[in-house]
């Protein structure tokens, strides 16, 4: 079992990164690790790029992941996966949602969305797992569970058992959304090795 690691979450404000990183943090705490997580609030949340750093181990000091040391990148949007390339190393795993959210310059027609950008990661030998989290969320009947489907896919790369994650969802998610989030987690988890 891996004794320490760095999980970077990236995406666009409003995609549910906070909940995804919280559930993951609780699962790692349950697995007996010390955990630290760093977020940025305020101006950064208004539809801009957002990130959350999660580090676990026996004793974690720094709340920030160093460049070149993210073991897992959970990217909620394609461009926001590519943007964090300097944080990755050759053995990193990238779980990326295939959703595209056009940045302002693209939405205004001033720039184009770089279509084959994920190749830049795979060309460097990085393990990229692209999943359509919205399709998964749609199948379980609640589009807002796309973030938890992402956590499900990512959980394959962690030692914590799926049951730990399901227990965390039971504990931390509002009753009305528990079942559907658990389904999204399991559907997301199955995607990776199918």
């Amino acid at each position: 079992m891996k004794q320490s690691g760095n999980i970077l979450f990236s995406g666009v404000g409003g995609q549910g990164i906070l909940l995804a990183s919280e559930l993951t943090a609780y699962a790692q705490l349950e697995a007996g690790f010390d955990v630290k997580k760093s977020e940025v609030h305020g101006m950064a949340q208004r539809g801009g790029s957002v990130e959350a750093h999660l580090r676990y181990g026996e004793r974690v000091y720094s709340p920030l992941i160093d460049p070149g040391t993210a073991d897992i990148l959970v990217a909620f949007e394609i461009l926001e996966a590519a943007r964090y390339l300097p944080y990755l190393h050759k053995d990193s795993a990238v779980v990326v949602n295939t959703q595209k959210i056009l940045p302002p310059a693209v939405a205004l027609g001033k720039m184009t969305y770089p279509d084959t950008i994920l190749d830049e990661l795979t060309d460097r030998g990085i393990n990229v797992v692209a999943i359509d989290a919205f399709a998964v969320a749609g199948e379980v009947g609640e589009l807002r569970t796309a973030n938890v489907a992402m956590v499900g896919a990512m959980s394959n790369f962690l030692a914590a058992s799926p049951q730990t994650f399901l227990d965390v969802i039971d504990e931390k998610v509002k009753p009305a959304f528990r079942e559907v989030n658990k389904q999204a987690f399991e559907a997301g988890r199955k995607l990776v090795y199918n």
Partner: protein
Amino acid sequence: MAFDENDNKLWLSGNEAIALGAWEAGVQVASGYPGTPSTEIMGNLVKYEGVYGEWAPNEKVGLEVAIGASFAGVRAFATMKHVGVNVAADPLFTASYTGGRGGLVVLTADDPQMHSSQNEQDNRNYAFAAKLPMLEPSDPAEAKAMMQTAFELSERFDCPVLFRTTTRIAHVKGVVEKGERVPTESASMEKMPAKFVMLPGNARLRRAEIEKRMAATRELAEKLPENRIEQGNGPRGFICAGTSYNYVKEAFPEAPVLKLGMVWPLPEGMIRDFAATVEELIVVEELDPFLETHIKAMGIDCHGKDLIPDQGELNSFLVRKAVDPDSVGELFAPLDLPMRPPNMCAGCPHRGIFYNLSKMKDVFVSGDIGCYTLGFLPPLSAMDSCVCMGASVTVAHGMSKALGEEGTGKVVAVLGDSTFMHSGMTGLLNAVYNESNATVIILDNRTTAMTGHQNNPASGKNIKGEPAHAVNLEKLCEAIGVPRVRVVNPHEITQTQKVLKEEIASPDPSVVISRAPCVLLPEMVKAKKPVYFTNLENCSGCMACVRLGCPAISWHPLTPEQAVERGYTKKQKGYAEIAEVQCNGCGQCAELCKFDAISKRGEN
């Protein structure tokens, strides 16, 4: 399951931990003004029993409220972001003379890297300048524990104690252990004029007390458990505090470290002893060479800003690279990608105002601090200055005076309701008194939106969401003496344009209140308006709606062949489309569309 409310161990952010620490330390009165990264402290603190907490209209008011509570013998707390301390500096420097009765702690949340701020000033300098002790924790657990120490020191040395955090303390989550609340004192009235009335005669006597107190604090610093030496190996020793300690521990886990929990005054003996045990002394700190300068003033040789960056945040990679450049490996180079800056939300009422201002190319827009500062960004690009809270009004007035009659019809100030309450009002008073010809636009979205919807004196609710008096902005402006006060709905773009043009042209001071609630307010989200959609066959590709810069509207370019395929003329360069899931139903785009290509759902 662990880490729930029944467990002694909690998973808390630094701000949540500080709120818990303040409650455990027996705080009874707290006041603050929202500001990233300090905001969540007050929001969490008022959830505890036995604490009175409030949002003040600005930081000076907040600190003075806390001083009053301290004078009444209870433990009091004031919270603010780093630039807020500038606003509160006046009472701070004199509270250093008066001291109090109940412990008084003033929290400054600094923002290295300027994630959400206009500057990255290092507020450790305030501790030196105001002659006050300052504590600085390294993580949420320490932040909670240090609140207790801060109040004890404040009462023991009869002075306010400064408590500094940074973004990587405030917004970092970690494991924190819950404790018990200490017994609290009852408030009482006691007249102590020699201590509380700062006339020169009294103040001179208190001035001498400050030096005695700082000497005593310096002595205590040598024994304070929050200052500690962690033994290690190797020729290098590090001195650090706050989050920099974490980076040193990760970058050089074996090295001896002097960790300072109190960053002012400094434990000279301890530093001297530590320096004597290492071959090379390195001070690692973010921003200013604060520790370094004072350590060098002791005659101790050390490295500091000759190695460590003096701007922005650090991390363990940067520390390792600064100290041992050869030890860091190659990184993947960043890709050249379109940036994704923050943007005003879909349906944001501010957009209607900045759209109109963007059409007035010869008008200078003096801006202010809030979500609406994003009006600076393209495509609206309708802000020409932004200095600090409240400066929109005063900078506009100064420009109008410098320009004289030339300036009539050319200078506009834009600020939000909360910023107007904070420090825009006094500027407006001045503008009227001294006959400005500038126009002031108050963006009244009924809340303090940028920091996450805190209520303010214009919201009609207090910090807990309970009903409170709401100041009437129109009447307030009239009482100040503004001869022309108009109210517009910013979503009605054409009508707003008409009013703006009239008021900007007027040689008298005028106020336009742009009133529409923030679309993210819970009541607005609940009462979700019908959304708009694009009748693609009618779109002429004129881009009128695209120029609003709404995140729900995207431009899709077309080649001549693709245009023809879609039934457009081959000259049409593209079409615009609304993402209905993002639309908040403001209707600004529908008003701008001259081709009947945008309609409301549920209407024919």
